[in-house]
Each structure stands twice: as C-alpha cells, then as structure tokens.
C-alpha cells in the first residue's frame, strides 16, 4: 500500500511543483522570448505579489482578501514592471548581459526596500477558509492519498493563466503584434508595428503574471524579502529548457523538471535531486541547445 501511495503522491507532487514552476517561469519566458531580456528582478516580482496579497488580506479580511489579493498583485506588479521597462530595460536594449546585471541591482534594492518597509521577518499570509480543506480519495485503491486544496488551487490557477496568455497571443491584436515582433523585429518595425509599445506590454504582462504567482505561492511558502531568490534559478532553468519564448516549451519544461525532481526524491534527498537536475539540464543541452521547442529560424545570430 505504502509504496503505491508514495509513488502516486510523488506523481501528484511533481505536477504540483510543475504548476508552481510554470507560474514562476511564465512571465520570464514571455519577456525573454520576445525581448531577449533576462530579468533577474523577476523573483522580486513574486515577492512583491506576496506582499500585495498580505496588504489586501489586511484590508479586506481573510476570506475575500485573498481573492482581491490575486487581482491587486497582478495589477500592482504589472504597473511596476511597466515602470521598470520604461526607466531601465528600454535603455539597455540589445545588451542582454548588461540588462541581466542591472536588473540584479534592481532586485537587491527591492529586497532591501521590502526589508525596510515590512521588516526583516516575513509577514503572515494563511490560506483562506475556502481553500484549507483536502480532497480525500478514501475507499479506493488509493486509500491514504489525499490532495491538499491549496495545491489543487495552484494547479488550476496555473492552467487558467497559461490558457489566458495563450489566448491573448493567439486571438488578440496585441497577440498578433507580439507574434510579428517575435518572428522578425526589424520587419515588424518597418511595417509600422510599435515595437516599443509591444515590448512594454509584454514586459508588464510578464511581471504581472509573476505577481500573480507570488500571490499564489504565499499560500505554501513564506512572504519574506528574500523569497524570490529561492525560485529564480529554477524558473530560469525552465525557460532555457523550454526554448525561446515558446509557451508549449515552457509548459513541457516545467512538467519535466517538476516530475523529475519529485520522482528523484522517492529514492534520494532533495539536495541530491537538485544536483541531478542540473546535470540533466547540461546533458539535455548537448542534444537540444535551443530548448525543447526551438524557433525555426534561418537567422545566423540570435541577438
């Protein structure tokens, strides 16, 4: 009994971890895919989402506060992302490595700012009553296996967000512009697309999704000034394994990494599964250096 429960539990956990990684990495994949911008402050967008959720709960109470928090976190971080894009990212266009360093500087400032405003110890966010149950599968072969409501919620949220972003890209005018710029920036520019505005919109959307992710993560993780740091490296791995700006790639990569680390942990410790994960990523890049889904392009150099 226990063996099956362990394996089944870990499979579920793999999907759960994948949904967290997907939420954390989706915004990054958007801006990286379109603008080749590595936003090292992405983790701090998660952090900001967590704190915005905390504030919403403080204002609207435990039940409704969290739902409001999701919206506030999305809008708040999206606005901050827009500000960041206008003041900093835009000035560094075409210098991806410098953007990486500058946004790392931004992340340090944001961490210290959170520390000054909310104190070095974290703030308390607990799951609202409507999420604190568990779904039990008693009476079947899976006796003893139950699904926490919070984790089910995060999986659903990740799916909804992914679907919404996919819809925006596939069905809206903005999406059309995004695809055009992604395909060929100079030509899109020449044909009259306002590429700067598209960049701004994508970056803001990406940071907004990160804020939403931070809001959801506050249900299962602490809300502290440094919380973003614990997700950022994994989010990056998802993006590079997934391939440049491909939503399908990001989804598949998140699932691969989530299920890999969960199943590895059946046999080994978490530390060791992390190390194995990186080794596998380096080996993987020997075969698919541009990620799972790579854009068919005849361009000689990616900028």
């Amino acid at each position, binding site marked *: 009994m226990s063996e099956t429960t362990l394996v089944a539990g870990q499979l579920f956990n793999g999907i759960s971890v994948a949904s967290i990684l997907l939420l954390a990495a989706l915004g990054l994949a958007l801006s990286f895919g379109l603008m080749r911008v590595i936003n090292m402050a992405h983790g701090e967008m998660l952090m900001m989402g967590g704190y915005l959720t905390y504030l919403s709960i403080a204002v609207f109470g435990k039940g409704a506060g969290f739902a409001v928090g999701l919206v506030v976190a999305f809008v708040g971080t999206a606005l901050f992302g827009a500000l960041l894009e206008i003041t900093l990212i835009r000035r560094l266009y075409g210098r991806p490595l410098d953007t990486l360093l500058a946004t790392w500087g931004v992340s340090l400032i944001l961490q210290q700012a959170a520390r000054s405003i909310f104190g070095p110890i974290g703030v308390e966010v*607990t799951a609202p009553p409507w999420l604190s149950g568990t779904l039990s599968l008693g009476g079947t072969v899976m006796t003893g296996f139950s699904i926490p409501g919070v984790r089910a919620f995060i999986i659903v949220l990740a799916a909804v967000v992914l679907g919404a972003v996919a819809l925006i890209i596939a069905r809206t005018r903005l999406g059309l512009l995004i695809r055009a710029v992604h395909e060929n920036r100079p030509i899109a520019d020449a044909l009259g697309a306002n590429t700067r505005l598209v960049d701004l919109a994508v970056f803001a959307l990406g940071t907004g999704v990160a804020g939403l992710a931070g809001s959801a993560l506050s249900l299962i993780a602490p809300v502290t000034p440094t919380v973003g740091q614990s997700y950022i490296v994994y989010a990056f791995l998802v993006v590079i394994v997934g391939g440049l700006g491909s939503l399908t790639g990001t989804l598949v990569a998140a699932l691969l990494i989530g299920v890999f680390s969960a199943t590895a942990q059946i046999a080994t410790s978490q530390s060791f599964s992390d190390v194995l994960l990186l080794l596998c990523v380096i080996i993987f890049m020997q075969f698919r250096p541009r990620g799972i889904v790579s854009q068919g392009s005849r361009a000689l150099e990616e900028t």
Partner: protein
Amino acid sequence: MASRRSVRRAIVGIVAVALCATVLYPSSSMAAGTVDVGVLQSLTGTMAISEVTVKNATLLAIDQINAKGGVLGKQIVPIVEDGASDPSMFAQKAQKLIEQDKVATVFGGWTSASRKAMLPVFERFHGLLWYPVQFEGNECSPDIMYSGAQPNQQILPALQWAEQKGYKSIFLLGSDYVFPRTANLILKKHIVHDGGTVAGEEYVPLGGSDFSAVINKIKVAKPQIIFNTLNGDSNVSFFKQMAAAGLPSAKLPVMSFSIAEQEAKAIGPSLLEGSYAAWNYFQSLPDPVNKKFVAAYQAKYPGSPVDDPMAHGYLDVYAWAAAVTKAGSFDPEKVRKAATSLAYSDVGLGETKFAGNQSLVQTGYVGELQPSGQFKILWQSKGPILPVPYDPLSFPGKTCVL
C-alpha cells in the same frame, strides 16, 4: 596612449583607496575611563532576523552595567560589527575587533559556521568569544565561552520528554547543515538505545521551500512525532504545507529545536499552535529576575518577544563583567579562569554557572506554543544539567580537554 594614462590613473586610484582605507577607519582610542568590547552579529543577510535581537539584548546588558558604574570603574563601549550572515565576514570582522580595535572581549556568533570561522582568529590572537546559541557540541576551545546549550542540555531532554509521553516512533527532519545532521546522529543513537524507532530522516537544502516530497514520506512513515531542526523560513513553508496536507500540529505533533519566541512571531503563531519546542529559557519562565529582564527589554523594544539566545546573549555580558571584577583584569586568560569559578543568578535563567569545560550548566524545558506566541512550560529536567560537549554514546572516548 590610452593605456599609459589608464595606468597612471590606476596608480592614483590604488593609492586613494589605500589612503581612504586608513583614514576612514577610526582607530579606537583606549580612553582612560572606558573599555571596548566587540559585538559581532549579522545585521544583514538571512540570519539578521535572529541575530539582531541577540545584539539588542547584549547592548541592553551593557547599558545596564554602565548605568551601575561599569566594570572595574570603566564604562563599557560596544563596537558593533556586521557579520553579514557570511562566515568569512565573521572571521574578518573578528580579526578587526581584536587586532585593530583591541577589544577586551567579543560577544557574538549564531551559526556553527560563523563560530567555526571565528575560532582560528580567537585562537591565533588569544581573544575571548562569548557564544550565545545552542549548538551541536563536538567542540571545546579555551578561547570560547559556550553559554548556549550542548546537545545533552536541549535535544536529549526533549527526547526524554517524548519517551515519557509514550512517543516511540520519531521522524527526524532538518535543514541540510551541521547542527541538524549532528543532532540527528546523536538522536538516532539514543532513540535506538532506548528502544524506540526512527521512522525516517530527511534533509532539505537551507532556505528550501518545497516540502511536498518530505510530507509524502512522512505520511507513508506514519511517525508519532516529528523532531524538527529546520532553520528559518523553511519552517514557514513546512508548517503551511503540513496544514494544507491536513496534518496540523494538533494531529501530528512536532517538536522543534530552532523555533523560539522570535521565530514563532515570524512564522505566525496560528500556524504553529500546539507544536512543541525545547529550550533552556522561555520568556514565560516565572522567575522574578526574568520578569525584570523582559520588562527592561520591552521598555526599549516594545512588543518584541524575548527568547533563549537573547537571554544567553544578555547573560554573557553579566558573566563577563562579574569575571572581570573577580579577576581584577581584562586579560582574557584571567577572565576565563575567573568565569568558571563563579555562579550567576542575576540574569533570569535561575542559578547557573560555567562548568570547567567553559559551557553553561542549565536546565532543559519543553514548552507548547500558545496562540499568543508564548510557550506554556510543560516539563523541565530534574535540576540543572552538566554540559557534555561529546555525547558518550555517539562519540565514545572523546572528552573535552582545555
């Protein structure tokens, strides 16, 4: 051409840096009526949450002693340095305090890593460090006074309590670093020796936030109690995810070794309610001297809880002052000799003293966390426990020779 200029500029730059370095460092003057002491804790970085409060308690004790006329007629001047949660920074700053500031003694350190990094510095310059936090033992140096608990004063009393309560099957969970691994090594020997079973043993990387696999393993192992040596924020994730998985502390008890009043406040008492902790001091200790200490601290930092490492940081200053007075000198060699021959009762831990191995003799307590964030004391060891740096069952034949 450009590079010749750059060379010349660089010379100017290097000289300027060197000059700045010498000018900007205020060399402390040993004024007639004062004595400098070092206070070295992390004011920044991941450990700042805990260490800043110990620094505050240390400074409070210094203020109080100064108000009563200081020590040997001299006012104590604290020189506060930031270890930045980085062991190499602790070594660097310890060297600065001893070599440049020429302090009489240093109070500080929290993580084992910081203590281990400072140890060679203190041994090299024959300084004296007062270390306030419970640790994994396996160390004794003449240049360190260990006021935090040895494993036999915190971990083993907790095991004794659990066995008395009838918990036989124990799951060991910790962050992946030295204290949890050593503590669990000792625990495993004792659990097996006492006829219990180790239901499982898991480690999570420091700062780790995903406990889904660990909780799954706990569910399969079905232990009666979890002994938790997780550090810092990992506790928040662990307790949140346990609650989400339908296993709150009320259902599966957790005994924590790194959650005191400060951490309880940070994690949120509602998540921890009903979980246990083992320490040698709780803010709720009904000792009149303790009440005075808590009141004095909260007068300065309103609303802040007081916990075990803070009480030890506070005790260290008083113990040092008493030892200096008895020795009639600030010489570390004389001070440490005097320190082990004195008893202290003015610091809220009851009557305590330093044993010959320079560790503190103290009582073990088990408390249960209340919604208020305070611990209700459930159990205490039969009298003060002598410190044993090397657990005889796990490390036979090793003793502390100073």
